[in-house]
């Protein structure tokens, strides 16, 4: 079973990106991806309630294929963000939380740390678009959060693209997962991750609709790894983390 742990749905003004959700599902079909886990662009970049509500409608429409991350557009919404997370997980049946940070709105923002502590208490995965450096700072205070480093930390400076840095964070923290999608098709980066932390904490993602699922999958298939390790990365690990297993 192939599971894509990182896609987006909904409208966004970003490189002509948007695709109707049914077209994204069709892309997943074409690439033989059985389950996709999405955040809504609107939830992470504009209004969490609007975005999450629309995503919830689509996860119902594509039940068993499309799953949701509760998106949060800013840590500054504090308790409202925490309430939205609870609504998304309890009422909408979402399977994790997605935050999109930057140098200006960092993961280590005090209000964001309160949100992350709440997510850690709930025990659900947190997919974070963040840098390895910011992740490291947060993990010192909230070591029990199940943190999925989106793009393997290939996000923003310092160290944009520094997958080696992300690997070192995951090596130190047993509940950190590394997700593989990004612009970088660097040969050897997945092998380096597996060598350092084993295959169990590496997750396949595509970032559809920004990237093509075939090119992102090719990075895993082309890696010098055993087939069993590739199978874990492409789906087995996500099935365990998001409790998709029967």
């Amino acid at each position, binding site marked *: 079973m192939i599971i894509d742990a990182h896609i987006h749905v909904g409208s966004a003004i970003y*490189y002509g990106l948007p695709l109707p959700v049914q077209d994204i599902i069709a892309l997943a079909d074409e690439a033989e991806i059985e389950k996709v886990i999405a955040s809504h662009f609107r939830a992470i970049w504009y209004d969490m309630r609007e975005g999450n509500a629309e995503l919830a409608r689509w996860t119902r429409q594509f039940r068993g294929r499309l799953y949701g991350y509760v998106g949060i557009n800013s840590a500054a919404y504090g308790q409202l963000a925490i309430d939205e997370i609870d609504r998304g997980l309890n009422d909408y049946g979402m399977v994790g939380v997605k935050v999109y940070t930057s140098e200006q709105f960092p993961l280590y923002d005090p209000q964001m740390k309160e949100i992350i502590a709440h997510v850690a208490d709930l025990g659900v995965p947190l997919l974070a678009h963040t840098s390895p450096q910011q992740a490291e700072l947060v993990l010192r205070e909230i070591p029990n959060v199940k943190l999925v480093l989106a793009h393997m930390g*290939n996000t923003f400076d310092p*160290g*944009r*693209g*520094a997958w*080696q840095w992300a690997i070192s964070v995951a090596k130190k923290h047993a509940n950190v997962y590394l997700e593989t999608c990004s*612009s*970088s*098709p*660097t*040969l*050897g980066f997945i092998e380096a991750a597996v060598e350092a932390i084993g295959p169990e904490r590496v997750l396949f993602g595509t970032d*559809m*609709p*920004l*990237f*093509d699922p*075939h*090119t*992102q999958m*090719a*990075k895993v*298939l*082309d*890696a010098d790894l055993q087939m069993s390790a590739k199978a874990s990365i492409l789906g087995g690990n996500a099935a365990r983390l998001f409790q998709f297993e029967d």
Partner: protein
Amino acid sequence: MEGDSAVIIDFNAYVGKWPYWPNRYMSEQGLLELMDRHGVDLAVVTSTRGIMIDPQEGNDEAASLAGRHPDRISWLCCVNPYDDAAALVEIERCSLQGGAVGLRLVPQHQAWDLNADPYVANVVAAAHRLGLFVLLPLRLIMDWRLPAIQITDIGTFVNKHPDCAFVLSGVNYHDLRLAIDILARNPNTLIETSCLMGRDAVKQLIEHVGSERVLLGLGLPLQSALCGLVKVQRAKIKEEDKRLILGVNAKSLIDQALTRGAKTLPETR
């Protein structure tokens, strides 16, 4: 190489050392192993030594590799405009004696400015006279940490040299619209695909500039060959367009460069 239908050419390959992180395939045998594994017939290499440390040493390294594997390796030379007249001598040496098929300009690795350097126009003119195309990379491979230049600077440069044949390299989704604009304005300009990672990027290129001006780039041995291949092989474009992009266009460009180079007499000095 087999007949044209089977040709796969990586137009953005490298030889030499890789200073940024270890790469187990960054060697002659490693490159050939990856080419064999993925059915890549020919790699157009540039020496990282020539890009980053010493153009002449690097050019010798690339020429030597091509000499050992003439059916598998073509190469691009590198010069530094800081060398002034010596850069022209080096281009001529690489073209007429070494069999280089193009010139790669890398201001982002050599601390000169593409549009302000006082000597680079002479370098480009020499390449043009020798029948070499000029490859202009935004970045060497798709890693955000590597030195990069702006697509707008490349556009300005290309517009200043309308007669020269350029190949845009290292373009990703941020730069694609402007790259298409450069291609639309400059019919002598082509583009390689090694850093194009946006969904449907190859299809967009075909729709705007046609398949004849798109060259497969893989970034061997630094990038995943499979990733680079599927972006063309799985693109929603005609099979004939794929064939052109995978190798036919590159082979034609290389053949043209070699033919023109063979007909060019050394400049009287």
